[in-house]
């Protein structure tokens, strides 16, 4: 059941669809890897987080990476993405000066 008003999915439904234990989602929240919204006394995740949660599910259930590892990896991936953006900007900057 998707709650139309705010595009939220109750965690219970999410876990049933993805066949993951609710404790896993709770742990992701504890590690600040996802956000949980409570509405009408129901804990939900936003649909915008699905892609990220699917990735975290793959890390844990398919690659056998524990939560501490996922936490470390997520932080490093954020850094990788920031650096990749920075490289892109620097490439554009280099291109600018190489046209001198």
């Amino acid at each position, binding site marked *: 059941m998707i709650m139309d008003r705010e595009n939220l999915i109750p965690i219970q439904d999410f876990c049933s669809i993805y*066949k993951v234990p609710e404790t896993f989602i709770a742990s992701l929240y504890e590690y600040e890897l996802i956000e949980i919204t409570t509405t009408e006394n129901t804990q939900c995740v936003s649909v915008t987080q699905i892609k990220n949660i*699917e990735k975290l599910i*793959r*890390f844990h259930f398919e690659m056998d990476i524990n939560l501490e590892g996922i936490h470390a990896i997520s932080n490093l991936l954020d850094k990788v*993405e920031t650096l990749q953006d920075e490289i*892109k900007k620097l490439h554009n900057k280099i291109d600018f000066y190489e046209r001198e």
Partner: protein
Amino acid sequence: MPYIDYYKILGIPKNATEKDIKKAYRKLARKYHPDLNPNDKEAEKKFKEINEANEVLSHPENRKKYDEHGKDWKHAEEFEKAKQQQQQYQGNRQQQYSGNFNESDFSDFFESMFGGSSKQRSSNTMFRGQDFNAELQLNLKDVYTSHKRTLTVNNKNIRITIPAGIENGQVIKITGHGGKGINNGPNGDLYITFNIVNNTHFKRDKNNLYTTIDLDLYNALLGGEVTVDTFDGKVKLKVKPETQNGTQIKLKNKGFPVYKKDGQFGDLYITFNIKTPTNLTDKEKELFTELSKLR
């Protein structure tokens, strides 16, 4: 279509047990999975090979067929025919990694042996479709104005609007135009990376443009008017008397459009390169000498 040694890909001997295969696969997947290697095409390629090797070796029926006939892959067609006469293969899949993969991610060798990916999750888990990544090369002039363009992604035509002012390397997301969702899951997204080629004489830094124009000595000394090329046409420009070499002037709003801000433009910066006359006549030399004596 070369023979692919799946054992070599996973780094395991031919007599490896299922446990060995799983272990080797997981080890390599942790190294090359695209989730762990964002925007790394080499890792993605490597992972596809690993995934394919696992697809074959982790399933006893596939592995048997591969072991018996893999090297003699030309006979695969015969197997394919035989297979088609049988019921459609619906075997239980071993666990495999999901993510951004579809049938086209398997090699021709694999397709010939096993007739395409039989990759299905053993459960009815609902998953988002794979995200597609595409690159689009455009000239700087193309992105000066917003325009529509039709792209063909996986044999489907998608008409998109490319907003003016898009940057080189910028990625835009077209929601829902990726792969189909699994078990009624939502579709993936399409990510387009723009590769903007600048074949103009303007240099671009975000929304500002830069160019250098030659100015003759007399215009520089006495002032005058020059015609300057801007990105959207020519403009006449007044030159102040006694303009120095390297002087930079700014033409407001004559730069590049600001991304997704209709009607807003950056500025155009023009640097003057003063050209001194050459091949002076005797008369000119005489006059310049006279001038120099006045200073």
